[in-house]
């Protein structure tokens, strides 16, 4: 027994136990409770198994929300990754003296609570008093129905999400860029590599794991986004900007159908789990190669 207690693994487990308990309480319990809710009938009196899920499969609006959530998350993450990659390079190549200021300024969208910053965007897009439209009108262009037209509304919510999330990519990519050994670039230069070849054969392979983890993390957060869509469009017009979280809130809280709302929010889990398996598998493979 004494030997068991002195083992490093036992001590490590004992030290991690408080954290495990906190995670169990704050993550596992709500997750299990959510699954429990999803198996109840509308009045929450009877167990109905998977009925809520099979019911959702028969609803056109649900499939529209699935499609919109995927379009919203994937397109926002792609733009965030591209912008993040480009801006990180720009900042990396900025002289060290001014770099800190740029880094600080670029983080501003990410550190403002999104519900507040989205309110500012709402005023910019306001149906009747849009600041953007004021500018467009003053340069002789047509007004845009930012939040009233389905396609523009989708564009608007994705734009705000990209604005909010791109700084996270910038910081992660910047850290990755700084960790690439300078000797690799010197060796590539001696071999006669041009700018593009250095990027393709040195920078990208060295950043692959960071890119994969950042994309996965952002995909999870973007998929589960609530506040941006809720504040900007509340899912409208005609449900055409709803994502899983806002649709779940609409049904669960506003329509008083908590089991159905819980079922919708649980649909995010298998989709994200599949994405996580693919992305992390690739990282493990590369880790093995290294």
């Amino acid at each position: 027994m004494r030997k068991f207690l002195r083992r490093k693994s036992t001590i490590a487990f004992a030290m991690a136990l408080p954290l495990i308990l906190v995670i169990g309480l704050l993550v596992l319990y709500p997750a299990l409770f959510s699954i429990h809710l999803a198996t109840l009938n509308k009045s929450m009196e009877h167990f109905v198994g998977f009925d809520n899920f099979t019911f959702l499969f028969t609803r056109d609006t649900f499939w529209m929300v699935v499609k919109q959530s995927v379009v919203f998350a994937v397109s926002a993450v792609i733009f965030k990754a591209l912008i993040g990659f480009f801006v990180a390079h720009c900042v990396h190549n900025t002289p060290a003296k001014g770099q800190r200021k740029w880094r600080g300024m670029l983080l501003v969208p990410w550190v403002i609570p999104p519900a507040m910053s989205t309110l500012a965007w709402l005023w910019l897009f306001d149906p009747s008093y849009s600041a953007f439209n004021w500018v467009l009108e003053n340069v002789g262009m047509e007004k845009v129905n930012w939040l009233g037209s389905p396609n523009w509304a989708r564009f608007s919510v994705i734009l705000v999400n990209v604005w909010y999330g791109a700084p996270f990519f910038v910081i992660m990519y910047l850290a990755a860029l700084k960790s690439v050994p300078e000797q690799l670039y010197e060796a590539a230069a001696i071999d006669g590599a041009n700018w593009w070849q250095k990027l393709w054969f040195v920078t990208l392979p060295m950043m692959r794991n960071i890119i994969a983890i950042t994309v996965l993390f952002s995909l999870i957060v973007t998929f589960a986004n609530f506040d941006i869509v809720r504040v900007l469009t509340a899912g409208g017009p005609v449900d055409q900007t709803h994502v899983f979280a806002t649709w779940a809130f609409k049904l669960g809280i506003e329509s008083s159908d908590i089991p159905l709302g819980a079922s919708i929010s649980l649909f995010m889990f298998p989709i994200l789990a599949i994405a996580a398996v693919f992305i992390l598998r690739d990282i493990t493979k590369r880790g093995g190669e290294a």
Partner: protein
Amino acid sequence: MASKQITRRRFLKNAAVASATVAFAPYIRTAHAAGKLEVGFWDHWVPGANDTLTKLCNEWAAKEKVEIKIDYIPSQGDKNLLTIAAESQAKSGHDLLAFPTWWPAAKSGELEPVDDLMKELVAANGAVSPLIEYLGKHDGHWVAIPATPGSQIKGPCARIDLFKQHAGIDLTKMYPAGAPPDKALSDAWTWETFLTAAQKCHKAGFPFGIGIGQTTDSVDSMGALLSGYGAQLVDAKGNITVNSDAVKQVLEYMKRLVPFLPPDVFAWDDANNNKWLIAGKGALIMNPPSAWAVAKRDNPKVAEQLWTFPTPSGPKGRFQPYLPYFWGTWKFSKNKSAAMSLIRYISQRQAVEKMVAASQGYDIPAFAKLNDFKTWAEEGPPKGTLYNYPPKPGQTLSISAYPAPPKIAQQIYSQAIATKMVAKCTQGGESIDKAIAWAASELQGFMRA
């Protein structure tokens, strides 16, 4: 250290003395002898309205020797709905809680019946409309009492000057302050007249601001129109009746009206119509007098020209969109008797009159004898602007999705099926039949038990 041993004899003696002290000591009534009451009221948007309610509650608490704790819960961000959901799940929370329109029905099984109190209040304050009964009475029992704070009518609020100049309608003559409506003019105030006026005001550059979004103002406006034409999406027995001539007639009507509305009304929320009117951009919105009250502060010139009056009539009558609040007590409440006593106190005529005055006439009590307060006659400028705001004979209080069974109606209402149908066959360019087929499919989904 010397220890004192307790013998059996001494223990019995002490126990007897203690029991006698408790049993025969004089009863001293402390400040909070009747216990504690936790209350969750709706956070009124009118400055000062909460203070009046707090004062009334404190008066009651002092009289009844109850320790009261009041939380004002805002409806912004649906915080009040989240509170209801959380307390219902936790089986713990406020002893008395404000429930928005559909929530007494949604939580009817968890609310304490209040039949006796309702009977008492009806005897004192007059009858309530069938709409209140539809929302507050379930399975033969009243589960909540209609509350004054937050209960509102969303009839038209329009510009006197613009209506006279561009639509040729004198609002103050049609619905004068302090006198009955002009019979000929008010009879002619129909949805067809509304359409003609919308067309004329649009031409003059002051379109009507009727939202076709998914929030309550949009849904309630559509509800009044649907009721006026006798159109029901689901009937009282729960049958889907959306594919009817009356619904088609309303959609045809909206196809004619939408071109005269601002192009962005499909994205409007409950603030957009207010801003539209206050900024002087439009001639009419359908809203409680909150827009007028804000205009008094922000744009007095516009406020001086605003007049609140009943909705137009349709082939089936004149329906006023009413959105009442209720007060209810959970079955798990720890102090039900005190909760009932407080509701009784703040539902008395004098208390209600104070609350209506504090809300600048915004709140509309549900009881028939409480619609004659001087506040509505005196508020201004212009004086009497709210005289026609409370319900009058010849009007029916209605709500969008009525008369569907409340648990189905709540979903029709919160998911804005009516305005989405309109958006589909106007902005979306779909045929009326296709929009109706879509609505029928959505309604089918709401039948889930």
